């Protein structure tokens, strides 16, 4: 079973990203679970979304405390919270940033880093506004490339299901991120 934790801010679409990812993985016959941090969310506040993907039925229904991989939708979160908390050694940290993976030397000691400029991709595809781009679908392209948890075709279906508005632009953004994501050296 793979457990993925998405860090984002309310309004960036982290919860939808988790749902679309789960849906995409389920198309290939995987068992999936996707849920938000339970509670009251508000725009701009740090949020978490959880995804489990497994070859076997998933019975565990508690939150994810020790993720295999984490995704950071907003680079400003790197300064306010410890995104590596509980992360298993050797796990991927997929970050939405213009920086290259090499610039995260501290993370690279124990984890693997991948980066993609999802903000630029979102803005270029008119997803959200310049001030508040919606980066969730772009990051999905990076996630499936790095973690290999779903095919591009299945991701397309997952996005259509959970992000039906501007589906074509969202799918294009995901594909651009898939091509552009930079993978750091194996730890």
């Amino acid at each position, binding site marked *: 079973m793979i457990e993925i934790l998405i860090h984002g801010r309310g309004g960036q679409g982290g919860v939808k990203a988790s749902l679309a990812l789960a849906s995409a993985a389920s198309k290939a016959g995987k068992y999936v679970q*996707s849920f938000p941090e339970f509670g009251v969310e508000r725009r701009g506040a740090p949020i978490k979304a959880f995804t489990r993907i497994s070859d076997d039925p998933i019975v565990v229904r508690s939150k994810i405390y020790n993720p295999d991989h984490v995704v950071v939708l907003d680079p400003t979160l790197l300064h306010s919270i410890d995104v590596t908390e509980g992360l298993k050694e050797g796990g991927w940290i997929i970050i939405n940033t213009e920086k290259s993976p090499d610039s995260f030397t501290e993370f690279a000691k124990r984890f693997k880093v991948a980066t993609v400029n999802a903000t630029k991709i979102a803005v270029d595809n008119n997803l959200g506004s310049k001030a508040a781009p919606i980066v969730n679908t772009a990051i999905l392209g990076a996630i499936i490339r790095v973690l290999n948890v779903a095919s591009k075709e299945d991701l397309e279906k997952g996005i259509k299901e959970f992000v039906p508005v501007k589906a074509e632009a969202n799918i294009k953004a995901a594909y651009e991120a898939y091509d552009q994501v930079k993978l750091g050296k194996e730890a």
Partner: protein
Amino acid sequence: MKKVILGDHAVSYGALLSRVQTIAAYPITPQTLIVERLSEMTANGELKAIFTKVESEHSAMASTIGSSASGARAFTATSAQGLALMHEMLHWAAGARLPIVMANVNRAMAPGWTIWTDQNDSLSARDVGWMQIYCQDNQEVLDSIILGYKVSEQVNLPTMVILDAFVLSHTAEGVDVPDIEDVDKFLPPYKPEIKMDINDPRSFGALTSPDVYMEFRYKMQQAMDKAKEVIVEEGKKFGDMFGRKYGLVEEYKTEDADTILIASATVASTAKAVIDEMREAGLKVGLLRIRVFRPFPTEEVIRVLNGRKKVVVIDRNISFGKTGIFFDEVKGAFYNSEGNKPPMFGYIAGLGGRDVTPKVIKEIMEDAIKKDKPESEILWKGVKL
């Protein structure tokens, strides 16, 4: 067709597939998504039903009672404070012997204000005459709505299908959504023997003298007893048609177990991972999940627990001044039975949505295994002192 859907939407699909004819509801977190989706389904014509927006949960149940009494397949959903507000009408629905199905999202009671899960809302409605089904996953939620109507319409008692707040209600997972034509073969249209009908006027629920009131209550208990058989029977038929069988309880690796853990709802689901882990370490442990709480599966509980070394009950609820409620019920079921009675440990955990993780469940099991008998009737797990 397999769809990745939230637990709340599994309820909506269950109602859609059951071809419910009326929905009257008032929104409350975390139930809102259920009725939101049903209002969309009725608005776009997918579901041919009358959707009534009401001003309170009391009215939601009152309206549901009216439509059920006039022969419609009626549905509603609520949670916590909403369930408490409709309490009077819960008695009416059961006493009038109406096969209503309602989803209740298990949310803890305020104050302190809370939206997270525990079972005190539905368990406060233990004695109203409704059947209560506690679900462990979204698939079971959808299936239990359909099964609810199938059973209720045979025994003339309402069914409450219960799912944990957020842990199911707002969690998406793969759910097999059956074709409605197949569900039609399982669940025929509702045809009541007696209903409100202007061509056959009757008085309903009128003044009932001490002469006959007790007989009506006797008949409700008889219906509950019959429901045990019908639930098992229909759960088996459902399994034959859809590949998923349901009963009053679910046994998991109990066969040669010395220690049996009893749990319900999603705690029971998570517990399976712990049972697997402890089994791998060579410990003979098993799980008894209580799926149907009313009618209470007394015979099944006695059969499974008889002769074991230890019984551990996890309650995500409490009857203040007594103990955890499942613990109390399991003990009570046992008292007049023959045979060996193992020591029983009653833990309370996860109130108000505190996460019940595999670690929490494992610590509970280890605590019980190392003790000869419980030091008190309530064993609080994780309470900060």
